[in-house]
């Protein structure tokens, strides 16, 4: 999950003079070095697909829960949400709640049943009782699309953070940092596989949550642990918004369209999380459904706790740094948390927070890359191209090559997209996950009658309608410029090009119900039903029977 709003174009000329770029870089390099040592030490060769994609299900629920938090809490959720709370107050908080509540879908409906019926990829579950080839292809296409948009957002975010955190400016320097992030990520994935990536995520989650907790206590300490006093100071330092900082509507309450847009976004957030492939992949890294349950339990405590801390950090940045200084900094809202760190603990603390922000991007992109390469190697190469007839070694070899290719695509995509508004990429990833993945996941786990046509219509219908509506929405073209005569905040910045006709930035309100409907319609118009496979899937999903056997695979 990335940004609320890494701004559409980070000013590259005005790098911050706060803090010490050398120190920031040193701390980031230190993180990379330590994690690489850890990865090399624990690497087990990644000889089998099960080891490479899922660490052979060898993590405990608690470890996996921390890793999930590390996978889910991206740099932009740290920087973006804190910044949104600092500048827009309550609306930033409102946004973070959707990301948390979404985990209940995973806890109650998805995690345990997925663990019990799948082995290596999301398509294992979706194709379980349906026709293998078409459903695997459809699922793989959707998984690769979601992962691609999400990766692009993270890589673009890395570029955008550069001018903000490392004080380097200019096109070449940003490209260089994107390339470094990409290369380190590929190294993690190739050496460490899922086992190494999981440890990177665990280390990062602990650092991120600890740093945020320290900032929270520090801020609260300055206001005598009086939340009301902190709010007072935040209101005082943000005269333009003033008292409205404490009520919803500053960002999303402008007019009816923005209001409906927020409902649409909320729907995509709350239903998208349990359809994110890299999140689902994490459930395969534990041995049993009981451990999968424990993973989500831990993830909810950590993610929920983190967003509560972010509330204080956000208002703290509003109070101690102030909206004027945040808006004047490169990166604007995204600089709120680092600037707060600077105000609290000077260059050293800023360096620590900046280093952690970068580490955060690395851990997220590594998880995405593993998932995408597993999907390509297992679903496309092994099951579709080779029709299941290939060795484990070949499959892993293909997965490794896929990881390199995906990494390269992410680097190039990140360079291309770095000046774009990345918020829409994240919204797109969540909207695609909620529309193309979740209906089919729920139908195949819970609806007896569900069949191949239903799955294909729902997946392709959800995917095509989501991407199609985004293309014709204001995020791609036709937004009015923020300042008279300035560029439009749409992806196509020329305000004269406008082919948008769909009014909402986020299409979830239309595409999610549509995908559920198409899944139903496709199913009832087809006679296919495999009672034996349904019985097998249902019994295994609830009893966990056969999971141990599957792990040997």
């Amino acid at each position, binding site marked *: 999950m990335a940004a609320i709003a890494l701004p559409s174009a980070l000013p590259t000329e005005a790098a911050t003079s706060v803090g010490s770029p050398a120190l920031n870089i040193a701390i980031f390099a230190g993180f990379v070095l330590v994690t690489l040592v850890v990865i090399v030490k624990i690497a087990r060769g990644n000889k089998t697909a099960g080891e490479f994609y899922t660490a052979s299900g060898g993590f405990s629920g608690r470890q996996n829960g921390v890793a999930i938090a590390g996978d889910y809490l991206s740099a932009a959720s740290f920087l973006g949400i804190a910044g949104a709370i600092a500048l827009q107050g309550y609306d930033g*908080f*409102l946004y973070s709640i959707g990301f948390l509540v979404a985990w209940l879908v995973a806890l109650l409906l998805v995690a345990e049943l997925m663990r019990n019926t799948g082995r290596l990829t999301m398509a294992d579950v979706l194709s379980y009782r349906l026709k293998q080839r078409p459903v695997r292809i459809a699922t793989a296409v959707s998984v690769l699309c979601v992962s691609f948009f999400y990766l692009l957002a993270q890589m673009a975010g890395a570029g955008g953070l550069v001018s903000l955190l490392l004080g380097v400016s200019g096109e070449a320097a940003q490209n260089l940092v994107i390339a470094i992030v990409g290369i380190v990520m590929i190294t993690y994935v190739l050496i460490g596989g899922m086992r190494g990536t999981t440890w990177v995520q665990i280390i990062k989650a602990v650092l991120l949550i600890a740093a945020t907790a320290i900032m929270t206590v520090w801020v609260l300490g300055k206001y005598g642990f009086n939340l009301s006093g902190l709010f007072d100071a935040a209101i005082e330092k943000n005269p333009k918004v003033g008292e409205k900082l404490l009520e919803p509507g500053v960002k999303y309450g402008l007019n009816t369209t923005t209001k409906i847009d927020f*409902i649409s976004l909320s729907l995509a957030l709350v239903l998208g999380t349990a359809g994110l492939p890299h999140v689902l992949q994490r459930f395969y890294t534990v041995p049993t459904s009981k451990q999968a349950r424990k993973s989500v339990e831990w993830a909810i405590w950590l993610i929920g706790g983190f967003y509560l801390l972010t509330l204080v950090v956000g208002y703290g940045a509003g109070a101690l740094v102030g909206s004027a200084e945040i808006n004047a900094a490169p990166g604007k809202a995204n600089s709120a948390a680092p600037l707060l760190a600077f105000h609290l603990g000077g260059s050293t603390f800023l360096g620590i927070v900046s280093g952690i922000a970068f580490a955060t991007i690395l851990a997220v992109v590594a998880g995405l890359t593993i998932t995408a390469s597993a999907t390509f190697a297992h679903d496309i190469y092994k099951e579709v191209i080779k029709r299941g007839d290939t060795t484990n070694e070949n499959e892993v070899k293909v997965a490794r090559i896929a990881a390199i290719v995906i990494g390269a695509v992410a680097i190039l995509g990140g360079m291309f997209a770095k000046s774009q508004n990345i918020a829409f990429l994240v919204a797109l990833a969540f909207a695609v996950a909620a529309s193309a993945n979740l209906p089919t996941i729920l139908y195949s786990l819970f609806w007896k009658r569900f069949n191949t046509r239903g799955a294909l219509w729902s997946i392709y219908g959800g995917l095509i309608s989501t991407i199609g509506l985004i293309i014709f929405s204001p995020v791609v073209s036709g937004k009015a410029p923020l300042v008279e005569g300035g560029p439009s905040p749409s992806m196509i910045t020329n305000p004269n090009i406008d082919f948008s006709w769909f009014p909402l930035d986020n299409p979830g309100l239309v595409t999610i119900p549509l995908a559920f409907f198409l899944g139903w319609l496709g199913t009832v118009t087809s006679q296919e039903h495999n009672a034996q496979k349904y019985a097998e899937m249902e019994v295994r999903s609830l009893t966990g029977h056969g999971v141990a056997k599957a792990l040997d695979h």
Partner: protein
Amino acid sequence: MSNDARTLRDEDPYVAMQSTDEFQELRRKFRGFVFPMTAFFLVWYFVYVLLSIFAPGFMGTKVFGNITVGLFFGLGQFVTTFAITFIYARWANRELDPLADALGSKLDGDKEH
């Protein structure tokens, strides 16, 4: 898989298991818990979202100091999310796992003999 002692010998073990009362009980229990709970948290979440979007004034009403109704509602979302997590995990560990484990070993038993 060949099993002469089994009562439902001609059937696939999973099909046989699916039609047993014990399995149907497990299924009913599971769905009876997670479906209403899902409905509850989704409704409660969207009530919160809709109130925030369409009644910002109400949400901005101060209860004491600068602590608003909206803050209570927002923190309420955290409280319910944590509570549902806690309640479900305890319930599943206590009610669901023994049933599921028993059925799982029964299937293993069926296959071994």
